[in-house]
């Protein structure tokens, strides 16, 4: 038996013994997802049980080293664990920016003290993080950000405004970019710093979106004091750290283009459109669109796998995250559009009678998906990055 097969048996036994029955089948129910934090509220108490059980075994952050609360799994073992969790259609035990973004960034760029302080709290779901990158006048041109940090003894004093801070109203800490030197080329005067959201002078206002939800906030900083030891990397080298973190973000957003345990497009189309005498979707034009979308998802999944296999074989990581971000999000948006087409007028529900819960959810997820090609660097920015860094086209 190969090591991986042996690990799969162990992982399967562990998942079956430790996952709450109630959560099985709820992988795509956002109410079942746990992001943790001091203000954590669990719609289902089982989500809390699942998080705690996973954290006790290091499986909330499976690839992190054991001393920081992980299980020290290799990438292929972590994939096996993920497959075993997906096999029972369970949600991942822990989601959120701590797990997907600042954690990996601290592992790469943090000091020993910073890792020891923050990583175990993320792993146990005790602290929830949000991201302070974009500003009202620094969107695609992120490096022109203006929120300032001025040194005062052992502290930086921060003033300015961040926008699109996902979950800032529920987060405990923020990782953010601040301007520490206004007199050099814009990328060279940026510092990456961690700030406790309970610090005096932090104010959060949720933004209502076209989907009706308020997952994003505006976050204001008035003379907020953050200790200098909360700087990650060197002062004025924040752009390098930020780019690495954006790579993690793009991979995480781009990941939504993959199949997984989601609604089957062919099944949905058969349901809403009906089938012809040969059992095919009874609308040739729609069938062609479903086919194209399924094939695109398959090709994308294979490309993600090929990239991962390459890393495993020792290839150096390149700017591929831009390709995955671009294609994964465009694919997800196309999929959402196609699901609207399949449901037809039944996709128009906002709330109340006459619509199934799945149909009401569809309307919202479609509207939410329109942000996919904007957040984490627009599609146009990703194409610019590929043209410059991969193809070497001139500025």
């Amino acid at each position: 038996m190969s090591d991986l097969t042996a690990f799969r048996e162990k992982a399967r036994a562990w998942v079956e013994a430790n996952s709450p029955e109630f959560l099985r089948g709820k992988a795509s129910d956002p109410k079942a997802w746990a992001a943790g934090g001091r203000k954590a509220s669990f719609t289902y108490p089982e989500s809390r049980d699942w998080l705690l059980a996973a954290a006790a075994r290091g499986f909330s952050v499976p690839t992190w080293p054991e001393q920081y609360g992980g299980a020290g799994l290799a990438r292929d073992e972590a994939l096996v664990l993920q497959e075993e969790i997906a096999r029972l259609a369970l949600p991942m035990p822990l989601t959120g920016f701590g797990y997907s973004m600042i954690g990996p960034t601290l592992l790469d760029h943090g000091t020993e003290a910073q890792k020891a302080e923050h990583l175990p709290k993320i792993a146990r779901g005790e602290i929830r993080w949000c991201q302070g990158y974009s500003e009202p006048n620094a969107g695609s041109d992120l490096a022109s950000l203006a929120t300032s940090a001025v040194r005062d003894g052992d502290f930086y004093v921060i003033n300015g405004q961040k926008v699109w801070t996902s979950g800032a109203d529920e987060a405990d800490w923020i990782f953010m970019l601040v301007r520490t030197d206004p007199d050099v080329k814009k990328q060279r005067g940026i510092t990456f710093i961690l700030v406790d959201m309970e610090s005096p002078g932090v104010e959060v206002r949720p933004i209502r979106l076209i989907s009706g939800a308020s997952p994003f906030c505006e976050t204001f900083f008035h003379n907020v004091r953050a200790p200098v030891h909360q700087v990650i990397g060197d002062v004025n080298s924040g752009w390098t750290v930020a780019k690495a973190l954006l790579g993690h973000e793009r991979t995480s957003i781009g990941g939504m283009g993959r199949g997984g345990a989601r609604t089957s497009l062919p099944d949905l189309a058969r349901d809403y459109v009906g089938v012809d005498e040969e059992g095919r979707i009874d609308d040739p034009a729609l069938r062609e669109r479903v086919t194209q979308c399924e094939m695109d998802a398959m090709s994308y999944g294979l490309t993600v796998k090929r990239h991962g296999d390459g890393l495993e074989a020792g290839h150096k990581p390149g700017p591929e995250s831009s390709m995955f971000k671009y294609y994964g999000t465009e694919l997800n948006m196309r999929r959402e559009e196609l699901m609207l087409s399949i449901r037809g007028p039944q996709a128009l529900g906002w709330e109340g009678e006459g619509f199934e819960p799945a149909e009401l959810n569809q309307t919202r997820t479609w509207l939410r998906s329109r942000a996919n090609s904007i957040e984490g660097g627009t599609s146009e920015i990703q194409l610019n990055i590929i043209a410059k860094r991969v193809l070497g086209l001139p500025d």
Partner: protein
Amino acid sequence: MAALVLTAPQDMLARTAAELISKHGGVDRQRQLRDAGDELAYSPEVWAEMADLGWLGIPFAEEHGGLGMGMAETVLITEAMGRGLAPEPFVSAVVFAGGLIADAGAAEQRTAWLPQLIDGEKRLAPALLEAGSRYGLDRVETRAQPNGAGWSLSGEKVQVVGGVGADGFLIAARTEGGDDGLTLFLVPATADGLEVVAQKRVDSRNSAIVRLNDVQVGAGSVLGDVCGGLEPLGRAVDRATVAVCGEMLGVMTEAFERTIEYLKSRRQFGVLIGTFQALKHRAAKMFIEIELSRSTVMAAARALDASDADAALQVSNAKARCSDALILVTNEALQMHGGIGMTDEHDIGLFIKRARALEFAFGDAAFHRQRFAALRGF
């Protein structure tokens, strides 16, 4: 599924293949062969060197003198050939015809043909297409009538790739009505009543009409079972399709890289045209399509090698993806080259011509999307 990454020996094979193709002149050789107008349309000395290197035996078992490798290696050869537009009939003679004999042939048929095929001494051509048959494997009008202990064949095959100069043909003929009425025959080129007429195609490759006028063949020329031709033919076509996808990958990669170089050297309005965002974004999208294509080709080759249950699905996914990507890339390549790309003197036209032939080989993107949906049952 196997890892989508080249092993060290595979990487070495890919490099050796690229070196061989460029050593013989790369794309210039295709231009010279076209201008010479020779009906053989490929270089016998390159074919002989491919045989010396063992490549004509890549997919065959060692007991027949082959290298015992698989599709994962085969696509590395075809990709290198695609990059240099090398016109040797590797896919038709080795992957398709040789593979079909290895798969469905009787022991004496394998012994009679495979060692000579691997040595490069004899060459077979599969005769698949008929006028109007498009991509349906069972759309065959050529007839096989029982005649004593053997058969009498009549019909006309068109666009038989590698048909000029072939020593024998693999011919599908209808023996009874319906899907199961297809029988495969191995017919020597010297058979009475068999006529080979060279055809000229847009890609200047070796292509022929094969006319069969009451060609008499013995019972021993049946490949596989009488009326049992469709299944082995389908398997051979899937392997050949993936080999063609490898070539498509080579053609699109080379056309793309030449175009990127052009964007970095051509000046208009006082600047390099590669600075224009309208072109940059289209170039980046082409890059992504090529990356996706590469993943599908590697996956399909490995799925066939492992006889995976979803191998046919992977093959159709790869052929549809490569067809769309290749047409996008070669059309954009010509557009980005501007007027110079329309001249015969410039090489980019050779790529766009080959691209169309590859697109229609074994089914275009629309055909393979239909097949994908049918295999998935929706």
